[in-house]
């Protein structure tokens, strides 16, 4: 993340272990680097921290705070010199248990949530289970990844208990390029799609597939190639070749340059 290495070096303590970091780095990243596991649901290393799931809560204190702790979310807490963090104190575990209990009430049938809840000793939610069970935990990974690649075809709509992820007007989204990033990043596999060698459907919109000219695999939609070409300043043809074939071609080029293989004309399209 861009914030890394931006501040001066600091030393902090996580679960009694001294850890080196740079001031302004987020506590979650620092802990992960030090091999300390903090559970997360809405975090993805490729996206900005969101603070949506509240599962990464930890206790933070400092020298001179007289034992007083404040509870923060690790993914959005910038570290500084001398802080002392506890990732599994009794209070932290209890708070995470409440979060998971509530998530389990919302998503009683979701395997990921069931597994996490069980890890914290919850077999069954103590709240009234959602009468309309859903797999969506509103972590917004899908909408954030969609924003990140510059498409923004979906967003969260409504508020409160009616909040959901949806395209505008619940119609097939005009901006969607069918890249499936939303479906693949979804931790609970909530977003349905179908894909075959000829077509792909997601959010009610159908896409035509492009085949790799070398291996014939259908790996990208027409809209996807157009979007990436428009953003990267590279021709659409570049994206029609699949990644595996591109790697092979590149390896061939390097071998030729190193004189391993005799110079040859580039493979005909």
């Amino acid at each position: 993340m861009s914030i890394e290495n931006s501040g001066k070096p600091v030393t902090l303590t996580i679960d009694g272990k001294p850890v080196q970091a740079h001031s302004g780095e987020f506590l979650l990243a620092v802990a992960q680097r030090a091999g300390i596991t903090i559970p997360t649901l809405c975090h993805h290393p490729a996206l900005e921290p969101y603070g949506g799931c509240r599962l990464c809560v930890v206790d933070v204190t400092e020298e001179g705070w007289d034992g007083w702790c404040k509870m923060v979310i690790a993914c959005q807490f910038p570290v500084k010199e001398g802080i002392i963090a506890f990732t599994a104190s009794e209070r932290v575990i209890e708070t995470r248990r409440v979060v998971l209990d509530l998530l389990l009430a919302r998503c009683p049938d979701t395997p990921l949530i069931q597994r996490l809840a069980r890890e914290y000793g919850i077999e069954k939610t103590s709240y009234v289970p959602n009468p309309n069970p859903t797999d969506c935990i509103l972590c917004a990974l899908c909408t954030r990844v969609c924003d990140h690649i510059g498409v923004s075809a979906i967003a969260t709509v409504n508020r409160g208990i009616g909040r959901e992820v949806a395209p505008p007007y619940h119609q097939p989204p005009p901006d969607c390029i069918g890249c499936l990033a939303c479906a693949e990043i979804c931790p609970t596999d909530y977003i349905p799609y179908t894909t075959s060698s000829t077509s792909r459907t997601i959010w009610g919109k159908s896409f035509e597939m492009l085949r790799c000219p070398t291996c014939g695999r259908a790996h990208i939609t027409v809209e996807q190639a157009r979007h990436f070409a428009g953003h990267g300043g590279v021709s659409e043809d570049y994206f029609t070749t699949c990644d595996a074939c591109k790697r092979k071609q590149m390896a061939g080029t390097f071998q030729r340059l190193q004189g391993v293989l005799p110079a040859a004309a580039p493979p005909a399209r």
Partner: protein
Amino acid sequence: MSASCSVDLTPAEKVLERYPAEEASLIQVLQDVHRAYNYLPCEVLVRVAETLHVPLAKVFSVGTFYKAFSLTPQGRTIVKVCTGTACHIRGAVQLLDELCRQLNVEPGGTTPDLGFTVKTVNCVGACAMAPVLIVDETYYGNAAAAKVGKYLKGSGGKADAN
């Protein structure tokens, strides 16, 4: 988008002219557009998205998030019934029932002639005069179901809209 709406975009264009074409203008534009149309028509949202260079999904997200915005046409007169605890105890339910019966709408609904919209609010902070009924900007304290017709007439709208 939804097929059946055809809306005059001129008022929206006038609003858009007044603001810089950037994402920061979005909420103010939506507020002004809402004032001009009494709701947010879908064509207008598409136009706003294009002009401000904001993805339509984001405009829709904002438009559905705030209670101040409505995606369906609102009545010329908004009637709000407070359903907070004090009002509930002092008869907000009967008040709402009578209001909905006279206007022949569901809570949250609008009469077909776009005269009235009936809304419920959770508390208006005037519990001493519960139950409270608000017609546009006029607050009626100790409101009685029997006087609903009078309150509506006071608004200048058609009280017998059913």
